[in-house]
């Protein structure tokens, strides 16, 4: 890893096709800064993205990357990281990708605690399909498929993560560029599954969860006396229905990552050019 990596080294020469003003621009910039600030470079970094507006990120960033199928980015990231723990793995997704079709994988990725980061661009709407309700849409949010609102409560991704045994839960806001980059950087540095839900407003299809809304309503935990290592305090913030928070809400630094628990350190790509030396022992077992 070279020390002179700049965040623009993580930028590809492909121009994003996100709508002008989309929160995803700021989200991506913060991810690139965080990767550069943690001493990574494009050749040791693997970015996995799912489907949706968020899924395009693999194209706009420069690194090893896979743009996969809808909802399954976390399992791909898990496979990459376990097969070569020397790589920096960052998984990106959206609220549909991560909390709807992929919610099952989300819960289990949290439980597994593989040392990678997961950045979710949460705009509370389906943007790529032009404006349908997402799992984080408000109960009364009117869309083309929910004319009177979904009439069901939104998913609380932070609560899902906490109940599944998360070791790092954070929330950020794409337009608070410095704080967002800092928070993603902390997720990368965390020895385990670093989960960041990023409020990344959709300027085209969501006129409720707007930049102004988040700017006015978000409370930064750094401005409070919140202790991120206090599980009960984190639970109170996460379940607080009246306020939304940014910052690292919970971190457990004592839990072993999946790789630590299973003693995985080697790059599995390196194998001998024939059967392993003692492979005949495997045959002997069957006598």
């Amino acid at each position, binding site marked *: 890893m070279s020390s002179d990596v700049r965040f623009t080294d993580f930028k590809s020469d492909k121009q994003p096709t996100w709508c002008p003003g989309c929160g995803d621009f700021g989200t991506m910039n913060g991810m690139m800064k965080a990767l550069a600030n943690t001493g990574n470079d494009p050749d040791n970094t693997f970015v996995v993205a799912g489907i949706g507006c968020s899924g395009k990120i693999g194209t706009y960033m420069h690194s090893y990357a896979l*743009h996969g199928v809808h909802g399954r980015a976390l399992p*791909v990231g898990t496979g990459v990281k376990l*097969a070569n723990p020397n790589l920096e793995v960052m998984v990106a997704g959206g609220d549909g990708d991560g909390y709807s079709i992929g919610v099952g*994988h989300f819960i289990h990725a949290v439980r597994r605690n593989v040392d990678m980061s997961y950045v979710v661009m949460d705009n509370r709407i389906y943007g790529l399909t032009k404006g349908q309700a997402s799992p984080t849409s408000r109960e009364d949010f009117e869309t083309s498929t929910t004319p009177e609102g979904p009439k069901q409560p939104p998913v609380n991704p932070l609560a899902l993560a906490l109940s599944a045994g998360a070791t790092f839960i954070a929330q950020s806001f794409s337009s608070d560029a410095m704080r967002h980059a800092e928070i993603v950087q902390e997720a990368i540095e965390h020895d385990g599954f670093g989960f960041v839900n990023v409020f990344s407003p959709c300027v085209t299809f969501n006129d409720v969860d707007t930049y102004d809304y988040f700017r006015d309503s978000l409370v930064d935990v750094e401005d409070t006396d919140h202790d991120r290592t206090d599980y009960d305090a984190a639970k109170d913030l996460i379940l607080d229905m009246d306020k939304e928070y940014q910052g690292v809400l919970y971190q457990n630094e004592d839990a072993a990552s999946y790789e630590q628990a299973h003693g995985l350190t080697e790059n*599995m790509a390196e194998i001998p050019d*024939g059967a392993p030396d003692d492979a005949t022992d*495997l045959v002997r077992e069957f006598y």
Partner: protein
Amino acid sequence: MFDNAQKCRRSTFQKPFDLPLERVDNIMPADFNWAIGGEAGDGIDSTGKIFARALSRAGRHVFTSKDFASRIRGGYTAYKIRTSVDRVQSVVDRLDVLIALTPRTIDENRSELHDGSVIIYDGERTTMQNATIPDDVIGLDVPLKRLAEEAGGAIMRNVVALGAACAVADFPIENLDSALQKRFGSKGQKLVDNNKEAARAGRDYVQETYDHDFAYDLDTTDEDYVLINGDEAIGMGAIAAGCRFYAGYPITPATNVMEYLTGRIENYGGHVVQAEDELSAINMALGGARAGARAMTATSGPGIDLMTETFGLVATSETPLVICNVMRSGPSTGMPTKQEQGDINQMLYGGHGEIPRFVLAPTTIDDCFWKTVEAFNLAEKYQIPVYLTADLSMAVTEQTFAPDAFDMDDVEIDRGKVVDEESIDEWQNEKGQFKPHALTDDGVSPRALPGTTEGAHMTTGLEHDELGRRTEDTEMRVEQVDKRNRKVETAQEQEDWSPREFGDPESDTLVISWGSNEGAMVEAIDLLEEEAISIRFISVPYIFPRPDLSEEITSADDVLVVECNNTGQFADLLEHDALARVQRINKYNGVRYKADELAEEIKAALAASQEATQ
């Protein structure tokens, strides 16, 4: 059938028994067929395996089969062994000795018992009070539970039965000892000794109680054999081939692959992840492969259904991945513990759009090992998903082999076009960007594993350009589709896709099968030969690409295609290839072909064909 059957109650059972005792000379053919049956949870599998291993260690060939239900407790289950000093590779419709722990075991196997077969049972067991022993069969009432208790615990009653079987088969009981040591050694010498004692108690009881010269005599030899099933052979092949990352979700009958790898692959620097579902499993395996590891997942049809979503991504991102499909009876949940070869179409055509994939179908258990090695080489050489398909009957069947059938020195590894820091600039564009989907003459692009300097690149399930970035350019679309298909043409030219051939190459009757039917068919050839019917048999281990059998098909008078499915999916392919009709022999009742049954089927088909032409 049971008109003259004797109620087997202890109180009415008189010794010496009044059943037919004359030795029937024609019932000791070269092979001996043995089974133990009872309820799931009775330790049937474990007991059967002890006896199979004892036979194997005594230098006898063994071929096993299982009747089982997907319940852990309750329901009929049986473990069957066919053994000979010569190679055996099929089951037959004959049982010589049956250990029956339940009355249903006798009913289920009635048709396989013959004059002079022996049933060993415990007349003191409550459930056996209602059992009936057919009157042409020798019933040996042995107090299995009581003798086991005397030896140290009722749990050893099956081992008492093994001892009794040794007495009947004239098989030296010492051969059981090392198998018992292997099975129970980790639990302490005391347990091993108790089991040895239990076995001897069973043997002694039969010898002392029934003064009878049974028709069986199991010779031993000095040969050393290994006893292995298809799932284990696939797992062992994977480790030998350098597979280091496995992600899977348990499903019958593929779970044994995962269980085999767990606890072994770690010794070679690998890891097994149990995923939350098959969707996750294949995506994890895909991730492992993108990271550069030789990666695999194994499942059965229902899992393939789920994996089909990601299959297209694997193929279009040109990721080398081995997907093992141990087939079972479908559709839907089907018959989870029953045999079928019904997934050819699913593997060949599954998924929307069009994308090439390879499908290998090993025909024997040792071939499972070698085809697994081959699957990993093909996957990496051609950067393509490879289906490696076995089926339930092969996966759970144990068979003996000489150890050199798995000679690790013969394992070759070819990782294909992996570039390093020196060679990477040949594959970069003018801007220094690496081209993971470069258009090449042979269709195969260079592969830069993550970590390679200046190799950073993306790929996607979207149609993409040489850089792996989304494109809807009409020319590039055509070029990428053609490039992916060109890999198949290259592989067809460069690799050996030959089938295996048996029988009389000059015969006008051609039988073709794929996958696990080979063993039964090879034995059926011998049976047919005894009736002066000559057969040319081609056993095909490659579904795609596959050998072109047009000439063989069109030059034969009768072409019979044998497979365990209803419609003849492989026959369809052969007809398509040869532009000629074939006859189909299909079995889809959930049970594999047996050699004698298959011989009869072929005779009947030939007779029908002859009638039709007259």
